[in-house]
């Protein structure tokens, strides 16, 4: 059974709310991490 088609499953239900919500979460995680990594961690002094 090839499910490559673009039609939503289960009688037309596409979890758009979930998709938008989680994309926002992903963006927030990325932004938060990049801020911590390049804005807090590295300015405290490089380490090796």
């Amino acid at each position, binding site marked *: 059974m090839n499910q490559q088609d673009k039609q*939503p499953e289960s009688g037309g239900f596409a979890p758009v709310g979930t998709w938008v919500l989680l994309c926002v979460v992903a963006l927030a995680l990325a932004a938060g991490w990049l801020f911590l990594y390049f804005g807090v961690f590295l300015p405290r002094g490089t380490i*090796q």
Partner: protein
Amino acid sequence: MSNDPNLKDKLAEDARELMALPGELHIDPLERKWIFVALGLIGVFVLAILYTAFAKHVHPPGEMETLDSARLHLGGEFAEDKLGVVTQPDGSVKVTLVAARYGFYPREIKIPAGQSITFRIASADVLHGIHVPMTNMSTMVVPGYASTVTTIFPKPGEYPMLCNEYCGMGHDHMWSKLTVVSQENWRSGLTNTQSTGR
């Protein structure tokens, strides 16, 4: 066991099935997109880490180097008269410390800001951790192993070097004093330090 043809054939069959897996499953198109977003998110973190590791040499400390913690005092790199801050002939600064209940020895050290400092630390007894708040000077000190960590202190000031691994009842009070002096003061050899608390 690896000569057993049935086992090898079975594994090969499993591997083929693994490759065919994505086509066989029910995956909603939006969820499929989400998986790519998730992998992309992970990719952002991994790429940033790989980039700073290979292009900027940003790494955690660690390469295995053994030593006998019970015999530090008998000579060698961590003998008492060798401890402290030493400016190498090429201008770089090396700090040699011993961690022992309950302090980092020597208890007060001064180093310059804005340049690479290499710390060499050994434990004379149990596990310790050393960390200077608001900086990236951080490493574990494991008995039987020499710790090496290299970092830069951007801001002059007075900092505590705190032990952050449980080492006994005195752990709460295990700390030493680190003074970071500005480059010019260091170079002119002055001991005039600014106490900023941060």
